[in-house]
């Protein structure tokens, strides 16, 4: 009985394995192996997977221009901002009032046309929800948004600033098809947030078709998309939680894109002909942060000692496998105005000397806390432990749950003395980045970086309209930050996207997420 059953099982296995390993016909469907299905689509409410989807569903009034990069490939030019959903705009002499003329005949998958009313509704919704959309609004100093006519919108800013136009390239506050959204509004939920969490209604190139939580999400092209039709008409977002499995899938051609591939795999994948790895340095930097509110980090000499006691070469080799770019400052290219402010190199004697001067001749014991938000956190922490020990700084690594890390590093909470963090943002604007990361009111300030002089510099740079003065301010700010040594700048992990070998058209965007509409395969 057992034998027959075994034989039957083998037969079934063989037969259906043959069926199952048919190569998926590549007719304009892109299958993606992602770590998890998106848990929501409202750009105002962050949930895992939301941003990766939203950048393809919602588009902004402006977009970044492109230029030919170093190796002739197309790349984003952060200094060029072009019209997108807006046709053109005019700005008042004091820089505080912008009048946008919307493109005509831009329609959502539901057939409704983009009007100024949609924009106004978007900002009203963000104001009610008081989440990320509202933060962007504050950062860009947007005071009022008014519909002047059917296709004209007026933005009134509280201060003229450089962030504004760049912020409008983003997918949030998302421009919704308010006509469709309002159909799902209820008295308790006037902005249809419940419906918008699990459905999409935008003017972007793609649109949610089905969502099976935990399994997959299917997106289809917006038939009314106002710009060049994307090559891929269907995107299948498949949940594959195990990174090892994702690698297996892309290497065997079962999927055409695999998300979040461990760094160590990349070398092997580059050598594999069936796979294409696109690498971009990006401008996000892996840093170790020190909170000056907790001893011994309240003494600048201790912080500088840590910077000197870091073995940058070893980190570059062991953690980033020689493929990372060394971070030279709080800001890195392609952000405009980045300078080489971070002058620290490995020097254990200097570190020990500084420690002694600060009152710790026999070294000091610290705990370095990290989480699992980024793949490089643990290897980096272990390298820090090994290297700082040589200067007498005895590090105890402590891994904490990501939710705990998120809670404790939040602005105004700031209870993590020594932690790892990735400096990054959506907008490649230097003032915006510095505001986010190093300003006392910046929401990505995770280590209580509150220095009055620094804040003043950053605020000034946000509203400075003269180019030369602006660059000077940026340089000053970066040097000040490097001297205070609250960040240990290591490397830029870069962004590495893994595709099937035939994939073309990938262009890195500053929001650091994959844009589907650019991709194509084959001829």
């Amino acid at each position, binding site marked *: 009985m057992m034998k027959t059953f075994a034989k039957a099982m083998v037969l079934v296995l063989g037969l259906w394995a043959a069926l199952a390993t048919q190569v998926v016909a590549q007719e304009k469907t892109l299958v993606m192996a992602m770590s998890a299905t998106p848990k929501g689509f409202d750009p105002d409410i962050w949930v895992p997977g939301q941003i990766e989807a939203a950048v393809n569903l919602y588009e902004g009034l402006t977009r970044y221009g492109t230029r030919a990069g170093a190796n002739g490939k197309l790349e984003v030019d952060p200094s060029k901002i072009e019209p997108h959903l807006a046709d053109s705009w005019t700005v008042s002499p004091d820089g505080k009032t912008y009048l946008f003329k919307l493109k005509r005949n831009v329609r959502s998958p539901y057939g409704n046309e983009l009007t100024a009313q949609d924009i106004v509704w978007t900002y009203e919704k963000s104001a009610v929800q008081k989440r990320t959309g509202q933060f962007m609004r504050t950062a860009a100093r947007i005071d009022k948004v008014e519909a002047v006519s059917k296709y004209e919108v007026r933005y009134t800013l509280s201060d003229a600033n450089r962030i504004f136009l760049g912020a409008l390239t983003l997918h949030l506050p998302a421009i919704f098809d308010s006509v469709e959204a309002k159909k799902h509004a209820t008295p308790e939920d006037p902005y249809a947030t419940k419906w918008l969490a699990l459905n999409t209604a935008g003017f972007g190139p793609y649109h949610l078709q089905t969502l099976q939580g935990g399994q997959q999400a299917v997106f289809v092209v917006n038939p009314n998309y106002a710009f060049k039709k994307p090559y891929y008409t269907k995107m299948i977002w*498949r949940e*594959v939680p195990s990174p090892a499995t994702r690698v297996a899938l892309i290497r065997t051609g079962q999927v055409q894109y695999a998300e979040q591939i461990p760094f160590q795999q990349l070398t092997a994948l580059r050598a594999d002909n069936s796979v294409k790895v696109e690498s971009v340095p990006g401008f996000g930097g892996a840093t170790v942060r020190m909170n000056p509110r907790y001893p011994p980090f309240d003494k600048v000499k201790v912080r500088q000692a840590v910077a000197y006691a870091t073995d940058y070469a070893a980190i570059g080799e062991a953690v980033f496998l020689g493929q990372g770019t060394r971070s030279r400052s709080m800001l890195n290219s392609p952000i405009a105005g980045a300078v080489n402010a971070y002058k620290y190199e490995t020097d254990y004697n200097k570190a020990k000397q500084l420690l002694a001067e600060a009152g710790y001749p026999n070294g000091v014991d610290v705990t370095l806390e990290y989480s699992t938000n980024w793949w490089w956190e643990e290897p980096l922490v272990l390298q820090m432990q090994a290297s700082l020990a040589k200067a007498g700084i005895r590090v105890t690594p402590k891994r904490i749950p990501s939710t705990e890390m998120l*809670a404790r590093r*939040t602005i105004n*909470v700031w209870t993590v003395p020594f932690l790892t963090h990735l400096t990054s943002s959506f907008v490649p604007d230097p003032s915006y980045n510095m505001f986010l990361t190093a300003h006392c009111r910046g929401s*990505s300030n995770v280590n209580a970086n509150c220095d009055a002089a620094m804040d003043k510099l950053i605020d000034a740079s946000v509203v400075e309209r003269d180019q030369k003065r602006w660059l000077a301010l940026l340089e000053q700010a970066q040097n000040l930050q490097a001297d205070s040594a609250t960040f240990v700048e290591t490397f830029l992990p870069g962004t590495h996207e893994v595709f099937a070998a035939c994939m073309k058209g990938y262009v890195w965007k500053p929001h650091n997420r994959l844009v589907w509409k650019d991709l194509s395969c084959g001829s």
Partner: protein
Amino acid sequence: MGETGARIAKFLLMRVAVSVPVILGIVFLTFMLIRLGGQDPVAMLAGPMADEAMLSALRAQLQLDQPMLLQFGHYMLRLAQGDLGVSWQGGIPVWGEILHLFPATLELVLLSVGLATLIGVPIGMRAATHPNGWFDQLSRFGSLAGFSMPTYWMGLMAILVFFYILRWAPPPMGRLSIEVVAPTVVTGSILVDCILEGNWQALGSALAHLALPVACFTLLAAAPMIKQSRAILIEIMNSDYVRYARANGFSKTTIRKMALRNAATPLLTFLGSELTSLLAAAALVEYIFSLSGLGQWGLNAILLGDFAVVQGYVLTLALFSVFIFMVIDLIVMLLEPRR
């Protein structure tokens, strides 16, 4: 007939009465445990660009700043109305997701336990009738090896060998291949729905995708089955009843059938406890093979501090366990009218 009916009714009533405090205990324990940790789900909900004001507002909105017993009271009240709460990742109702995901876990576990029984009991039987022989030693060694192997490790190696190197198994990427049309959802179990609909292509694909995970899981489940059936059968073979039968010259096959019938009760009881412990172990298998079952979801929720989901997950497992025990004990009771 009426008497059996009355016995069944009495049994069920007593069982339910006894189970209620057990379930309550489990719910309470889970509730307290997950809140004791340093996990603060509010930060996860608020997202990366939140500030302290946003966090406190969210905390108050979710009643997380109230004393724990009070929170438990609220939870029980809602539970009594059938409201299991929502997942904090996207506001998805827990109850709906459970109905959606549990059949996948059940498929994996029931198939594996079924196969394990079909394989394990005959082996245990053979080992029991030829004790200390080479078969016995080998099977004992084999079953102990099955006990010792970490399932997740075995799953990884299986993917490496059977999918990546040999290309025999389909990609561990879910329950169905992409080009296959999924059956209309009736029970939530793909296998059953395919059969109901006559969708043979999807059935084949689903079976293929289940092959490796079921194989790994069956090996895990077979080990205790072999050991336990051997132990039970040895004891039965040594019992006076069987010795008497043997002395009276009954044939080997008849004796074996007798032994099996007597073994049914303890085996069934053991099966019950196996099912419940395997249900929890399924989470890791689901994770590695991306089977999108309840375990995968629950495991993720524990690590992220998604309280309502964890509570729903544990409650489902506990209720199911109690249910299984009840059913098995009922069967046992009906099989043995002597008691």
